[in-house]
């Protein structure tokens, strides 16, 4: 029971993004959103992707999640090709997304939300799935909100529940699309530590999109800077801060040196985007 978040699990979820490209048909001509985007993500690795708004980060995430087809290249998950121009991607519980504005079902209680994945996948009986959900919620300190509806909870707690709802499925990769964008700085810092606790306990691979550089460096093993449209990999920076991480590290000299480095690269891209007068594409 409650295999999710058990420390014995071996890391899984190696993802290869090979020359991934995405071209949109738009009035006035095709738009190249992503071009030749290549990255090898190791099993259990935490990768953060940063870049200017509207640079195609979400497009990439939707490609991995299987929401939108990619138009060139391929995406391989643990040796299995999950998307290419020829194979339209299909969403599945091995790649769970936590959305920018949150997507807990408002009409289900917290525990029903968390148990939803195991129930629809028919992984276990309904009663067992609910029991597992309660166990998991209790383990991350959310026992008290298990029977509440999401609208009664703060957005920080909603986001934590949503991460638990994702992790109960033991996904190979967790896809996060700026999940803390709407939170204020203080709750954000708390959420970062919560996320890292869940990450350290779950050994799942994480693909995290953000435009907050502190957040990217604090959370990730590697920070990938994506260019302005069309998105390409501009730079990959390794973050060698030890784990478990602590919010005080954000003031360390290693952290600040790294941030200066990332900021430099991102700034060039942001300027380019600004000069082209790009609007947010989301």
């Amino acid at each position: 029971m409650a295999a999710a978040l058990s420390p014995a699990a071996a890391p899984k979820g190696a993802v290869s993004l090979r020359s991934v490209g995405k071209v949109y048909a738009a009035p006035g001509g095709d738009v190249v959103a992503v071009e030749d985007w290549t990255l090898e993500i190791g099993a259990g690795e935490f990768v953060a992707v940063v870049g200017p708004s509207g640079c195609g980060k979400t497009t990439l995430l939707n490609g991995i999640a299987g929401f939108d087809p990619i138009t060139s290249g391929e995406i391989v998950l643990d040796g299995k090709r999950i998307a290419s121009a020829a194979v339209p991607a299909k969403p599945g519980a091995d790649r769970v997304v936590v959305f920018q504005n949150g997507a807990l079902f408002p009409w289900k209680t917290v525990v029903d939300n968390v148990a939803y994945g195991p129930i629809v996948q028919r992984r276990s009986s309904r009663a067992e799935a609910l029991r597992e959900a309660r166990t998991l919620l209790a383990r991350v300190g959310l026992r008290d909100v298990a029977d509440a509806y999401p609208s009664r909870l703060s957005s920080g707690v909603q986001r934590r529940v949503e991460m638990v709802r994702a992790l109960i499925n033991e996904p190979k990769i967790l896809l996060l699309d700026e999940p803390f964008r709407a939170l204020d700085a203080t709750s954000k810092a708390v959420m970062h530590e919560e996320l890292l606790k869940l990450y350290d306990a779950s050994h799942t691979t994480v693909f995290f999109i953000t435009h907050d550089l502190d957040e990217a460096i604090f959370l990730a093993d590697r920070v990938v800077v994506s260019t302005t449209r069309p998105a390409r990999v501009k730079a990959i920076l390794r973050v060698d801060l030890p784990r478990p991480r602590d919010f005080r590290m954000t003031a360390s000299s290693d952290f600040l040196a790294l941030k200066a480095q990332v900021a430099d690269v991102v700034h060039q891209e942001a300027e380019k985007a600004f000069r082209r007068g790009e609007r947010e594409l989301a």
Partner: protein
Amino acid sequence: MLGAAGFVAFVAVWYVLVHFEVWRFAKLPAPGAILREWVSRKPEFGTSLFTRTYYDDIWASVTRVLAAFALATVLGVPLGILLGWNRIARDFLFPLLELIRPIPPLAWVPLAILMLSSQTAAIVFLTWIAAFFATVLNTMLGVASIDEAYIRAAYCLGSRRWDVLWNVIVPGALPYVFTGLQIGMGVAWFSLVAGEMIAGDAGLGYLILNAYDQLQVSTIVIGMATLGFVGFLSSAAVRWAGSRLMAWQPR
């Protein structure tokens, strides 16, 4: 409290207008006269709280509205979900519905009487048709209003199409469905009275028209007030059911 004051003010203005015979208010009985008739054991015009026919008329109207409303819900909600959820169904049926929908219920009266075997069936049909369109249309809008992120979340948690329908589409559309049912209940009473006036032999609409033919003005007003009362109760019942089913909504 303020609500009670509103009632008192309304009755007072009515009394004054009748008492001083302002405009043609002389034709209207004073509030007291109507109340006396309403609670009289031997009503002058044969309709009061103590006459059997009064309850027969209420029963006739209420059962017709309930039958029509139930049919509108049972047929309208699934059709609205289908139209919102399935593009082929929408492309096939929606233009047709949009052409039929603007036809006022009253325009259906001749066909309803010609084609349906009984007067009751014709009245129920008229009552149903307006409620049905309000329900279908609002349900369909409800499906369209659902945030795409919920649907995507459901799929990436391992849902099949059927799971999404039951767990996301139906509950997600529910607030609009109940808006549609509220409107439906309102227009149902509207069409019912029109139908009963034209084709009825019983019911509150028939009671009012019959009283008019015999210049029994007190009975007209009693019928109107009764309609207000049962109409209010039926709307409150729909609201109550909605709030029971949607306890999850932020208040």
